[in-house]
């Protein structure tokens, strides 16, 4: 199977600081890959390198899909506060999602901003690979359930997801594979090698083992 998106021996440094190196990761159609790591581990940088926003210091990103078939949401903080919710919904979804809310984004609650950004990205029917950075952040239980169901529904339609999250309970059971970023190295495990079924405790246990912790 041809990967939608593939990182080959990818490395990134900022100055002399190595963020990650020798990262191999592929995202196939219809699968969800969870990306886990501590704060500052480089998860966001890895996502932005895969999107082409950050040029790698070494290695390459190979896409088999056109750039417009990529979807991405980097969190509520990446929404321009001076733009109205209605305008952003139209722009980010390329006309696939409409919001009647004419308030500026800065006037929305954190959860409402998160829902707006996610709704716009997930509504685009032409997306074949979607990269999400902390998508459950700020969502209430209803929003969390909607997001998990939306991801499942899009996955069933063949869309691939790479999701970075600290919300292990939401991530557990949703992914076919889990990618653990620790000390600049990425370890990718199939769900059945993490647990059966995968629980949040399994993810913590594997993560601790990989980074040599307790």
């Amino acid at each position, binding site marked *: 199977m041809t990967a939608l998106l593939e990182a080959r021996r990818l490395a990134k440094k*900022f100055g002399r600081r190595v963020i990650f190196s020798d990262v191999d990761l592929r995202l196939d159609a219809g699968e969800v890959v969870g990306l886990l790591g501590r704060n500052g581990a480089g998860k*966001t940088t890895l996502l932005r390198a895969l999107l082409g*926003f950050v040029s790698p210091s070494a290695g390459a990103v190979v896409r088999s899909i056109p750039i417009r078939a*990529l979807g*991405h949401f980097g969190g509520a903080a*990446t929404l321009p506060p001076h733009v109205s919710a209605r305008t952003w919904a139209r*722009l980010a979804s*390329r006309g696939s999602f409409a919001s009647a809310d004419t308030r500026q984004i800065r006037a929305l609650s954190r959860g409402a901003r998160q829902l707006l950004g996610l709704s*716009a990205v997930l509504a685009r029917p032409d997306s074949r690979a979607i990269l999400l950075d902390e998508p459950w952040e700020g969502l209430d239980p209803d929003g969390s359930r909607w997001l998990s169901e939306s991801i499942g529904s899009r996955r069933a339609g063949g869309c691939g997801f790479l999701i970075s999250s600290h919300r292990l309970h939401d991530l557990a059971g949703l992914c076919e594979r889990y990618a653990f970023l620790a000390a600049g190295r990425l370890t990718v495990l199939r769900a059945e090698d993490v647990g059966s079924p995968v629980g949040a405790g399994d993810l913590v246990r594997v993560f601790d083992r990989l980074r040599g912790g307790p």
Partner: protein
Amino acid sequence: MSVAEELGFFAAVSPPAPVLVAVLGILAAGAIVIETISAGGSDWVLASILLVQLFAVATGFFGHATRGYYDPILVGSSRPRVAIAHFAVSAAPGLAAWIVTGGAEAVAARSLAVPALRAPGWVALLLASALPWAAGVRAPRFAPAILWLLVTASLLVSGVLLPPLTAIHSDPGWAARHALRSIGVALAFPMVVPTLHWPAPVLLALAGIAALAVLLGVAGIVAGDYPTSEEGT
């Protein structure tokens, strides 16, 4: 994204400052009134539009891009198109004001050979649009225009700029004999370009400099890295 979507994106997310757009609108409206009353009286409006344009186009790019505001367009379009769309939206209000003023001049003069619509006028607008935009790609909003203001003010106060300005104004052949100094004067003070005499090679050189600036700005955006603000620090 289509071209219309790209233009619409920047018009919504990073338009030129509304107060500057309003000033440009007032200037254009003023030019219509002035030309109706007294044909040829709106030259100062052209200089004012150029001054405002220096600030209006310096919208910055990296500041918004590294906050993630441009993520949907960076992932949805090719970088050169993104860069050109950003430049077009940044320069559009000044261009619109220029065309309206030129139209008012042309109607009043019953001729297209008016300062805004002659080659020096277009070159001046291109300079005032391209240089601050390109210099502002990696700079905070307005920074290149403020820097230009400080440099030009110091050149005027120190008396460096006045002798060549006077010479170009009083002697139509001076600019041809001193091409490099003329180019320097036009770059330092583009407001005088529409109403003075400039030989074709000088105008071509100025247009070339402006085009080069746009290319460098586009290249900067195409080759740029856009980590989020906290990542790259």
